[in-house]
């Protein structure tokens, strides 16, 4: 099977859909001729022409509104927001319009738009190229929110989003574009080549929305993570020698409560990870729901290991990032709690 890094897998997902469905379009800032600042749409304009893959004015609200207008007229646009940090000029169009049109029109209009956007830190991007703003979007009724942790899922989930009749926000952990990252900035960048999830079929396949992946079975503690933090969790569990069950959520809305609850009911302990600030982060929702669904099983308080409640700093990137050491400490504390 072909080996792809996450960027190639994403390009392939769009390529597949552009080829098989003429309603699919892709646009955004620098997306056309240049192929995107990270190169994720590279080659697509050449292949599909500039009326299907094109540049858009630097106005994120305009991009989302245009996508929505097109979608209500039968298209399936894929809109790229260059960095997740820059999605907020489009926030109103997402919350007030894109995600409400089905509801407020009682199903007369639908807006199957997929918004792709790179998120997360670990590249010294400072406070405006590092955000993980997923929590905001999980509070918006009617929006599918997904975040893959590897090339295989990236392609399959992106295709699911494009094929979904619901609007979807697809986060791409940019630190994973070129290879898995376990949170240790001092190790040389590893590659997807040697990773089983770097094997990506050429054609159409989907990873279903709303279904988590148990990436490691274990019995001591359940770790719920997504995106980059999945890799940090694996490394931390190994380093600490904890028999953790590690769940890669993959879809945040709707999240896979069954898989999560089943695991916590088994382990009795839970640690939740995300890179975003803690307060009102998505970990809060998970913890609130887990404690409700698994109250009888819980033998320790659910811990959240997260970014801090500050903007993402530049120099102190690795003090901000919830790395292996902090995760390991939380695992230990949770497992030893009595």
């Amino acid at each position, binding site marked *: 099977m072909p080996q792809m890094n996450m960027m190639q897998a994403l390009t392939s997902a769009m390529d597949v859909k552009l080829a098989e469905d003429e309603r699919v*379009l892709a646009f955004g800032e620098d997306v056309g001729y240049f192929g995107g600042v990270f190169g994720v749409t590279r080659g697509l304009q050449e292949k599909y022409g500039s*009326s*299907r893959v094109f540049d*858009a*004015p630097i*106005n994120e*609200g*305009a991009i989302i*509104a*245009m*996508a*929505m*207008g*097109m*979608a*209500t*007229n*039968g*298209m399936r646009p894929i809109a790229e927001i260059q960095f997740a940090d820059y999605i907020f*000029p489009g926030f*109103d*169009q997402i919350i*007030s*319009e894109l995600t409400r*049109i*089905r*509801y*407020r*029109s*009682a*199903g*007369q*209009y*639908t807006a199957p738009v997929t918004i792709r956007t790179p998120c997360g830190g670990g590249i010294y991007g400072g406070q405006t190229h590092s955000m993980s703003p997923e929590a905001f979007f999980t509070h918006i*009724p*009617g929006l*599918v929110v997904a975040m893959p942790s590897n090339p295989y899922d990236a392609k399959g989930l992106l295709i699911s989003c494009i094929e*979904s*009749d*619901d609007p979807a926000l697809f986060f791409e952990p940019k630190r994973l574009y070129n290879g898995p990252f376990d949170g240790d900035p001092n190790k040389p960048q590893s590659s997807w080549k040697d990773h089983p999830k770097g094997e990506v079929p050429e054609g159409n396949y989907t990873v279903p929305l*709303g279904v988590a992946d148990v990436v490691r079975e274990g019995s001591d503690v359940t770790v719920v993570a997504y995106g980059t933090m999945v890799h940090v969790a694996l490394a931390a569990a190994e380093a600490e020698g904890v028999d953790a069950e590690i769940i890669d959520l993959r879809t945040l*809305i*709707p999240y896979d*409560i*069954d898989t999560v609850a089943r695991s916590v009911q088994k382990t009795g302990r839970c640690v939740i990870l995300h890179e975003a600030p803690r307060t009102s982060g998505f970990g809060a929702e998970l913890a609130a729901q887990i404690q409700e669904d698994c109250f009888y099983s819980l033998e320790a308080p659910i811990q959240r290991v997260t970014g801090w409640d500050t903007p993402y700093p530049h120099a102190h990137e690795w003090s901000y990032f919830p790395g292996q050491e902090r995760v390991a400490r939380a695992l230990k504390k949770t497992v030893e709690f009595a």
Partner: protein
Amino acid sequence: MGKAEPRISVPAPAFRPGDTPGFSRLGLPRPGHHARPDILADAAEIRDLAFGLVGVLDEEANAVGDWAPGLSPEELRAGLKTMVLTREYDNRMLKMQRTKRLSFYMKSLGEEAVAVAATQALDAGDMLFPSYRQQGALIQRGAELVDMMCHCISNSRDNLKGRQLPVHYTRKDLNWFSVSGNLGTQFPQAVGWSMASALKGETAIACSWIGDGTTAEGDFHAAMTLASTYNAPVVLNVVNNQWAISMHNSISGGKAPSFAAKAIGYGIPGIRVDGNDYLAVAAVTRWAAERARGGGGPTLIESYTYRGEAHSTSDDPSKYRPKDEYEAWPLGDPVERLRAHLIKLGEWDGEQHEAWQAECKQAVADAWKEALTYGTLEEGPHAPVPTMFEDVFTAQPWHLRRQRQELGV
């Protein structure tokens, strides 16, 4: 440099409650003044239209000048009838709101031509992205009053299942988008819709309306930028009815010479039109629609008009403007002006007008009676409660299913 003295100013309308309004200051061009350019004219060559005022009906109710749209008597009568019907509908709905049968209402008094004439000039397949004050366009498109009413009172026949405030109509079957409560958001969506139409090789264009106050929103700029960049086949209207809620248009418009003039900076034709002149609105809209359909791209139209009543049932305009300002408005009443024109043409008379008014009143009353048979907001029946949890997603996810169960429905 002299004595330096930067200073800011906050614009105020010319007249406040207690003042005697007078609009001689407007100094607008007379009907017939402007030539009608070629539909594919270069935007740079017709900038004067953005500072002027396209008018067709003169003070003697004649259609004059280049822009006279040549509508047939049938078309003109249809337009007049729709405007009268819209006005009767509005009157009834306001009254019903006053007696608490509606939670809220918004009239379009004085602005009927802006919606009706424009829609008549479009094709039935063109998609309308209205604000909340284009009910005339919906009626023009053939909506049944009873359906509109059922929506407004959220009863069991409300096609929006009680989810929306009154007047926030959605009618896909009539190529009428969905009125949003959020100002301006539909403007760039209309551009996107029109682009999709062109990409599919279809001839339908999109047409949107926002108010003067709404032009201040970023979405106005988004729409203009998109339309200009992609040469989108869209007609973008600013309904300058002089007021937002209590704010005069000088707050959102600032020192702008006109709202149409905003088009210049985007390389788009901007045309200001007498919004109370049915023929002029029809003519300008037709020009813009032909241009769009012919590959000429977008047009920004400013309809210069006056909001005859309160912003909505939630405000009292006598608190912020002279009570008689509407009467002093120099561009008259669109219904009266079109009526006079038809009478002048010998295609209508006072008796017919009264008969039609009476017919409308009756139709509205009948529709209201029928609407009530499907229930009311206060007493129901409404759409079944479980529908509240539908249409959030295509399929109901577990958390909404649980919530529905929690509510016990």
